[in-house]
Each structure stands twice: as structure tokens, then as C-alpha cells.
């Protein structure tokens, strides 16, 4: 089963994957807005820090989305 960090990575990738209809940029904007609207402060901080530390496993959409947070 996934660790808390793995779960966060999975969640952000999943949001992006489910909203690819307008292309990566659009999906990244949607994903970013979704996280802003529904994710707790600590979750957003954790995923931002994870990206800063390398972001292994994050999709292209996720990386773009996290950068917009």
C-alpha cells in the first residue's frame, strides 16, 4: 500500500490524468485550481516540497500544476 507521500503523488497525478481533454496546460490549470479548492494547506505544502526535492513520479501535468500553487 502507498505511503502518505506516495498517496499525494498518486492523487495529483490522478487529477491531471482525468482532465486531459484540453491538453496539458489546461489540465495543469484545472489540477492546480482543484488542489487550491480542495486540498488542505499541509497537503499543498507537502507536494510543493516534494517537487522541490526532485518530484520523482510526478506527471508532466502535475509538475506544471504544482508550480501554479
Amino acid at each position, binding site marked *: *500500500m502507498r505511503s*502518505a507521500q506516495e*498517496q499525494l503523488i498518486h*492523487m495529483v497525478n*490522478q*487529477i491531471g490524468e*482525468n482532465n486531459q*481533454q484540453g491538453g496539458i496546460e489546461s489540465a495543469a490549470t484545472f489540477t492546480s485550481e482543484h488542489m487550491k479548492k480542495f486540498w*488542505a494547506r*499541509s497537503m499543498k505544502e507537502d507536494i510543493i516540497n516534494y517537487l522541490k526535492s526532485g518530484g520523482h513520479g510526478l506527471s508532466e501535468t502535475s509538475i506544471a500544476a504544482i508550480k501554479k500553487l
Partner: protein
Amino acid sequence: MLEYYNPSKDLGTPAILSEILINIEIDGKSISVAEGTSVMRAASLHDINIPKLCATDSLEPFGSCRLCAVQIEGRRGYPASCTTPVAEGMKITTETEKLAKLRRNVMELYISDHPLDCLTCPANGDCELQDMAGAVGLREVRYGFSGANHLDVEKDHSNPYFSFDPSKCIVCSRCVRACEEVQGTYALTIDGRGFDSKVVAGTDQDFIDSDCVSCGACVQACPTSTLMEKSVIDQGQPEHSIVTTCAYCGVGCSFEAQMKGDQVIRMVPYKGGAANQGHSCVKGRFAFGYATHKDRIKEPMIRDSIDQPWRVVSWDEAFTFAAAKIHKIQAKHGRESVGGITSSRCTNEETYLVQKLIRSAFGNNNTDTCARVCHSPTGFGLKTTLGESAGTQTFESIRKTDCIVVIGANPTDAHPVFGSLMRRRLREGASLIVLDPRDIDLLATPHLKRAIHLQLRPGTNVAIVNALAHVIVTENLLDEDFIAKRCATAAFESWKAFISLDKNSPESTESITGVPAQKVKDAARLYANAGNGAIFYGLGVTEHSQGSTMVMGIANLALATGNLGREGVGVNPLRGQNNVQGSCDMGSFPHELPGYQHVGIKAVRDKFEAAWKVKIDHEPGLRIPNMFDAAINGTFKGLYVQGEDIAQSDPNTQHVERALRALDCLIVQDIFLNETAKFAHVLLPGATFLEKDGTFTNAERRINRVRKVMPPLAGLADWEVTMGLSKALGYEMNYDHPSEIMDEIAQLTPSFSGVSYEKLEQLGSIQWPCNDEHPLGTPTMHVTDFPIGKGNFAVTEFIPTLERSSRRLPLLLTTGRILSQYNVGAQTRRTPNMTWHDEDILEVHPHDAQERGINDGDWLGITSRAGHTVLRAKISERMQPGVVYTTFHHPGSGANVITTDNSDWATNCPEYKVTAVQVEKVTQPSRWQQEFQASDKRQKGFLNKRTRHTADNL
């Protein structure tokens, strides 16, 4: 809306839906009634009460007892007033010497084969036969009792809740007709002819062995004591009653709690209840004994560690202890290190207070509710497409539906009273489309004329909803006018282009869903061409990794076919627990204040901050699964759980248990020592729905009153407990009655602004929105527009779940519910409902069973990537090969030990409905089950060994 039943009077025959009025004269009185109304009902509506036995206004007229005979000018003989419809100019006489003699003779014949034990009969004081003997003036029985009779026929006590005494039966067929017309089960029949005719269950079996589902409709319909509640037989007739709302499923049935003092004798479905209209199921009708079960927690308790026995303390000591722990945690780990979970079983007012406590006294938005694990995708999906997080119709609306679509729901088990209404409409001719991996009972509805079962593979919902939409678009079955007027054009064009792609065609998706393309086409055409098509869905839609996408896909179907904004159509989520809708409405989610107002909007926060006099965090809080992850990570240390058993109901049990063990303070407020409470440091006694005032909101958005019928066993109602805890935390709340809490809700929540207890008393119930625009509430949503203006088609790309069968885990497990048990079973397991379902079992298809050498009753080990548990086998053809099924009503079953950490992409609603598993025969319980048994014994020991301490020696 038409009121079908007069709650205070039995008018003899049902209401007729006609606007044409007919003028008649009864006993010289001029009367106008709807065309088609019976003479009996017309008379009764004007307080002319014709004697009757076989007639009751919940059933179609039958005309067998002949007691209701009348004379009609110009007509020969003595027609039965129940089966005779009124006609223009009809002149009816209800009382003449001849009629009186005729009725006495009829009664005399009945009584000649009826025990004369009125004084010792359980129906004494509530017997229509007795009443009618009095009404017709019966004074003698000339035939004697020495001839052939039925007085010594054996009684049937096999049902745990009611007895069947055939010696008291007058063969009026009311029970048989109630089983057919109201319940739709057809478990009863009249066997034999003439003198030999008798009521039999099944094929002349005991009730318990028959198809009877113990809904109680027959007991309620019986005019004598033939079918009688055992509680009345044991304790006598109740002396007063109070109308309240059932605390089981999301149907929200109204009941009369019939009482002796503060003791409930029986729960009788209330005819004036708009949701249930006098019907009930085995849970609401009979399974209320848990309220006074010996396991009830009646005293507050505390302990420093979950490895210690409980210490009984006063309420104030418990509050002080809990508050000190929370403050200590926050001082050390920060404001956001604690949170709470509101209850979908508690009232709106109680839920509102818990989230208020979290936002005010805890100072964060770490509030969530069990809707997270059931209908959170409904909130997201419907808000995105239709603009409101709620179902669109009344239940009653289905009576105008031509095509009923049921997706991932099992209404006859999980929402039985609405299931019966569905069956009634199906018998009347509506067609049925079921999308479900399992063959549900609704498909076996007697007299069902046309049904299509799309038996899809678990996890392929979005593929099939897209295929249905593809057919509607490509075959031009769209409601172009509706789309042009009511829907956003750009979103529609974008969706249309997407859904028209060949990848969404029934032929392309057939290999994914396992459903033949032709069947999908037939279903799409049936729904789109039906006239009125209504979709009803349950957790088989939401509890998937694409739960929110599927909800949007359903809304797309309704928008595309114009099946919104009038009676008979709509999108209707069937809510699991009694107040799931209400708990969502009341701001339980971490990103929304009451009324789905986002915490990020300053104007919203300003309003609540002014009323609550606190600063509200502008960032969303943690959702339940995020709380668990944070607890395991060591950043989340304190949790207040009201009326929710997350240790049993949430997925991946071992993960949940690990999270709960990591907490420094777990405060559980519940009526029993539930599975979660075994990890608690503070146990606050909860109150059942019988012990408090408040409101529940059902799946129709209907706000119903809950009325206190007995005092709280532990002294406080749940809203009072939350106030006590909040005060100890330093945030004082001052309410003297839940009506004051509702006034505050109305002040802060636009969709509730017109709701008050006073209005609820006047109207009986209110469907929100209730505001200046809709002062009497809103039975049908989206009649003229959507809260977001135009309907919003959403593109619904099918993304397969990561949970797939493999060589190691070749089967797919899906889960569901059973009629007699409710959710985690905490209530129903403490009632005689255990008669029907005393363990969770694993249903296995014969093909899969044969491959593994499995027989009925074998112990099966079920292994997923999350865990391993053991259940007994039942061979069943309800699923296709490759799919296994179980329920989750018993904690020791460990059904959620095997469910995984997958969840819906938008809401984190767990993917309960798809788990890849392997199944094999085993000889002993799983390791988790063995540990569970040991832990259960230990924790119950801590409860039994509880000690009493005063504040001084804490």
C-alpha cells in the same frame, strides 16, 4: 402536491388523480369529488362513515366483505361503496333499515367463526372487527360455534417481530393486497376456496421461511389481531404517540412512535409522511430495540491509554479531560493537528454544531463526514454539471416516470420503501434499465414488463455511460430544444465532439465493459425515447476511482435527453444513511461552510465570522483519508468523532487502525462501544433518534422533524454534548433547543433561509431550497434554470482503475448491503434482525467455485493487495464469473481489511467497489480476524472493568 393519504383518517379507498369534479348526493348532502372516486371515499371525505372491513385507503378496493353496501337511486341491489365509483347526479343512501339488517347479517357470519375473546385479545381497543360489530349493532350470533370453524388453527410465531393467528382471520385479503400493492413482494396469498380459504405465506410455509421481507405492511393492514406485533401482545396497546423520522436509510420515513410512558411499544409508519406515505421496512418498523439494548453507553468515560480500563466520570470531568488533551496537542503540534468527523446519523443541528466547534474551538477546517466515503462524488459531480449538490426530484415523482434507470444501487435492500414505490411504478408499466455487475432483486419484480440489465464488469461505469451517450448523440436522440435553451453551448459542443468519437461507441467499449453493444443501444434508445426517464443511483456509482466522472456522465445523459426540470425525470442519488444529505448541507466538508459555501470566499467567511465571533481559516482542511495519513505521519494527533465508526466502515482497515493508534486523543461520541471507540481516550455517550429533537434531510432534500419520544439514557442529547465539549475548549455555545440552532442555520445558509421549526410544523416537511424565492420549498429542482445558469456538459474520459485482476489476484470483489442489516450493523446487529443475516458471506459464481473446489458454507480466504480475511462461501449466479461479492455489516468479517487505498480522483471517496482478490479454501480465520477477536475481548474487558473516579483522583 397531492396528499395521497389523510394521516388522521382511513378514507377507505385511495385518492384519485383527476381534476374533473363529479356532483353527487349522499344522505341528502350535496358533494363534489374527483371523477373516479369511490362512493365510500366520497362519503368519508364528508364525515359520512360507511362501515367497512376489507377496505383501507392504502389499498385498491376489493369488495369482499359486503359490509359497506349502500343503496343508490335507480340501481338494483346493494352495491359495495368501496368498488362503486361516483357518477354525475348519483343519489346514495348509506343508512336504511334494510342496509342495517344486511350489515348485521354479514357481521354475524364473520363472528360465528371468530373467537369471542375480546377482553384478552391483543387487539382489544384497536380492532376494526370489534369497532364494526359495534357500528352495525350486532347483538347475537344465531349460528352458534359448534359447527365447522377455524378456531383451533395453529399460530405461527416464527417471525421475530409479529405473530400470525389464523383463528382471528376474516380472510379480508388486506394483508395479501398490502404485500402485493404496497410492498410488491407477493409473499402472501389466499389458498383454497369458500370456507377453506385461508391466508398463507409462501407455499403454505411459516412466515420466516417464506419470501416475506417483514416490512410490516400486512400487520398494519390487518383489521383484527391475526397479524399482530409481538411487542403489543407482550405489553398491551400504546397510550400515546409522537410522529418522528426513522434513523435508518436515506428514504427518511415518518413514523408514529407509539408509546407507553417513555417506552416505545411499536413504530407505525405515518400515513402523512411525504417520503414513505405510510409504508415501512423491517428496519424502521421493527428494529428499534437497539435504543434500549444493554450495550448502550450511559456514562462518560476516559482513559489515558487505550491499553487501560475505562474510568467513569461526570460529564464535566469528561469535557475537561478532553479539552485539556486537545489544547495540549495543539500547543505542541499546532492548530491544525486536530480535527473532527461529523455524523450522518445525527441531526442537522448536531452536525452543524460539530463543524462549528471544529472551525471555532479547534480553529481549523479539519472537518469531514462519512459522505466522504459514500456520496462525496455526488457533491462534486452534480455541482459541476447542474450547479447543486443534491438530487433533483421527490420520490413521488417516480409515479410519472416511464423509464426507470437504476445504476449501482439496490433499492429493495438498501432503500426498501422507495424500492417498493419503484416496483409499483414498474407494475404500472414503466420500463427498467439496470446497470450493475450483480443481478438485483428489482429485476425480478413481479409483472415487470420490460427490463434491460447491463451487467458490466466492476470499474467500467464511465465506459458504459459514455457508450449510452454515444448512441444518444449519434442516433440523434438528443433533446435539441432543451439543450439550446437550458445548456451552455460551448460545453455541449465540446462534449458532443468527444462523445461522438468511435472509442466511446458500444462496439468499442464492449470489450471493456463486457456488455454486448446491442444491449447498450437498446438501453440508450429506451431511455431517450421514454418520455420521462429518471435515473437513480447509489454507491455503485460513487465508490470508484472515477466516481465523480460517472456522476457527471449521468448528469450528461439527463441534460442530453432533457430529462430534468419536471416531475417524472431527473438525477437522483439514493443516499445511504439517514442524514447524509443533511450532513453535507450542514458544512461538514473541509472546504465548505454550511450551504456549500466555500471557505476561500471572503464574503462567506465574513458572514460566519460575524455570527460566530471567531476567525475562520481560509484554507480547506483535511479529508478523512488525509487525516489518517497525517496521523500515521505524526502531524495529526487529536480527533473528535461523533456517531461514526470509521474503524469498521472505512477502507483498508489495518491502515485506519494504525492511524487511530497514532492519535494522542481520540474522542468518540456514540451510543455503543463501536470499533472506533476501542481506540478512544474519551467516550461520550450518544443519544438515539428517539432521545432528541432535531431534523434529518433525506435523499429528496426533504427536511423532516425528529421528535424526542423518551429522555436521553445518559442525560444529554448529542447537541448538548457538543456544546459541553465546546465550552470546555473555551468556545461557548448557547442554545436552549435545536430550533434555535436551525434559526442560526437559516440565517447563514441561503438555501435554508426560509426554514424554521414553526414552518416544519405547518408543512410537515420542507424540501430545500426554501427561501424568499421558494417559501414552501422546492419539490423539483431546475424547473426554469440551474444555479449555475446553464446546464454544463462535462467531458468524461474513461480512465481504467489501477485495481485490475491479475494472475495473482484474478477475481474482482465488489461490496454491497442487505435488507435486514444497516451499514456497519451497530444498530441492527443488536436487534432480532440477526435472524436473517448473522454473518457476512462471500458470494462466488459457480464457475469460479468449481475451479477452486468450493462448496456452499466452505471457509474462504480472500486475499487482496491490502490484506487477507476469511468468510463463508455462498455459491451464487447473481454475478458473472470472475466477480465475487460480500457485505460489510459485521466487524469481525474484515470486509474492509481487503479494500484498498484507491479513491475517486476528485473527492478521495474510496474505491470500495473494485478490489482484485484471490479466493481459496482455508481452515481457520485470518491473522487479522484472530487479532480482532483478541482485541475485541480485551476492550470489552476494559469496559466491563470500568472504575469510578472523582476529579480529585484523576
